[in-house]
């Protein structure tokens, strides 16, 4: 499923990303790569906040739609 379909308060594991190389690299530097676990904190009109590698990231709709995740145990 897409990250944008995730529910607040749940944990997900990144399966795949279909993003521009540049954005994928920036996410990588922030600790979000394939296989990373994240915890969804907040959703608002397509943008969302999640916790990953000990920090909070806010991403827009375009990114949230291009990250494919699978539910994971927290």
């Amino acid at each position, binding site marked *: 499923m897409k990250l944008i379909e995730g529910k607040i308060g749940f944990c997900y594991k990144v399966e795949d990303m279909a993003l521009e190389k540049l954005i994928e*690299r920036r996410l*990588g530097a*922030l600790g979000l790569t*394939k296989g990373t676990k994240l915890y969804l904190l907040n*959703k*608002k*009109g397509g*943008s969302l906040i999640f916790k990953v*590698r000990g*920090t909070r990231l806010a991403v827009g709709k375009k990114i949230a739609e291009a990250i494919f995740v699978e539910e994971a145990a927290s």
Partner: protein
Amino acid sequence: MSEQLNVGFIGNPNCGKTTLFNAYTGAKLKVANWPGVTVEKKEGAFKYHEHSFKLVDLPGIYSLTSYTMEEKLSRQYIMEGEVDVIVDIADASSLERNLYLTLQLIELGKPVILALNMMDIVEERGMEIDLHRLPEMLGIPVIPVSARRRTGLDILMHTVAHHKSKIQQCVLEHHHDKAEGVTKGMHQHQHHHEYVMVYDDVIEDKIDELIQIVRGNFEHVENPRWVALKLLEQDEEIIKKYPGNYNGIIDRSYENDIINQKYDFIEEVIEEVVVNKAKMQESTDRADKILTNRFLGVPVFLGIMAVVFFLTFTVGDFLKIGFEYGINAFSDNLLKLLVKLSASDLVISLVIDGVVAGVGGILTFLPNIFILFLALAILEDSGYMARVAYVMDGLMGKLGLSGRAFIPMLLGFGCTVPAIMASRALEDKKDRFRTILITPFMSCSARLPIYVLFSQLFFGKHAMLAAYSMYVLGLFVAIFVAMAMRLFTKKKEIHTLLIELPEYKTPNIRTIFIYVWDKVKDYLTKAGTTIFVASVVVWFIMNFNETGLTTNMGDSFGASIGKIMVPVLKPAGLGFWQVVLSLISGLAAKEVVVSSFSVLFHVSNINSRAGQDILVNALAVEGFSAINAYALMIFCLLYTPCVATLAAIKRELHSFKWSLFAVCFQLFVAWTVTTMFYQIAQIITKC
């Protein structure tokens, strides 16, 4: 020992790097740009015991790759050996993400010291860090500091002085057993006592092979392991610098693997050294529940901004009374002194009507500007600014912009120059262009004196409302322009928000003081230079014509210049040569519009009751009414920004053509909106 140590400060954005930097250098720092780019470079020198240090504040970055200007710059600066010691500042309260940069820095092979900042917050929130185990695992000195409480500062510099030549590292102790499914390579690697970061055998094999090739091809490679790693990441800069036949070794980019393995190692470190991690994030989560709430987020933000503007006007106006009194007294005494010295009328006119009227008029607005910047500094330092980007992302998305573009717009309320520079954080070039084009419509503090003056003159008890309406109008014009531009761009949905939300913290008084002082100093410098010169120039062209000194201003150079433009601005309700002239002089700095008015109408203190009465009467004689005043306010809000802003736009766009376009575009918008307002207002009042 007298040699100077070059110390590079580096760290993630929001790690408190600037606060720490300021703690050492105070406000005495040299701010310049890095050569060739518009990234700010801050330098400061200071002495500690017998050592002298030169601190360089490198840009806040998340990693040392070469994808952004800031990253490239920092990497190059460190690699070229201009830094003796690197101080890596990490936010101890979010160590996990911060250690990623640390690992990359260690791999560069220069002396690195890890400064664990925000230790006070860590303690406050019941989290603990094993400061014995951490340096053992990383192989570098780790010094706990708190830039806010100014603790650990001496120890950090002491370590810098004694660590400068120690490339050789302390004992490294770790297991690297965290990585899942470690693949066994050709041979077992035993690097754990040599390197902090050891990769899985597949990568280590490749590193070994690459080191061989690189060493063979290039004689002087300082750090072949790092080069090998960068080659595996397919770093464009390094591939260019160290070309070779790596076929068979680099079959794909190993960047993802390298990132993941670094983070796996970090996880291992965190597990060993951090106790009670979850506890401290709770308070931020609780605050975010309200501040970024899908329903409350926007109203809360609007409420905060309303309070900011309310304070700017009320507290600012209150403080202004003292200022006015001072300037009045100064002007009177100066006049008496000049008369006593039997100075000629020309000199008296130049000093009193030109300089004091112009510069003094501007100084009285200092309190308003002080409050506005104070508020913006608090919002930024507390960590709320990043939330604004998230909260506004939905709305900005409708305009085809990322929520991040809202930060430059918000900063634009303070000063357009840094706001334009902040647009650099947007990756997309088109997004950046559109943001740069609309940011000047956000009313900057230099335009505030114009609103304050004319709304006080013409709108009595509704003055605050009239001034506030300018901010709203500016916002609407910006939104409208952004939407219109969106229609012309074919590619839709290009916006993407990607921003880190830092933990909330109590704003630091020192950081805020330095930030505000910086802006106030700018304002004062401007009053002493640009506005001083502009006032003298305006005074000159108002009092002279081709035959020399003239007593009738209507015959002066200025009048002739103004009169040429009068027909153009007549439909906008601004067809007065004095107004035209002050608008032209306002290109130097928007405040000059006000000082020009004082010079043009011989008002020594434009902010005093008496001064304002003179001005209103003088304007009434010319047929300048409340509608004209409002039209003037609108025009000042929207027309071409000041020279400093134009220079910033030119720098950011790297294009003369597009900068010129921006200038013409803003003039066009200003004229159109003002004319629309004036014509409609005329019709309504006639009915």
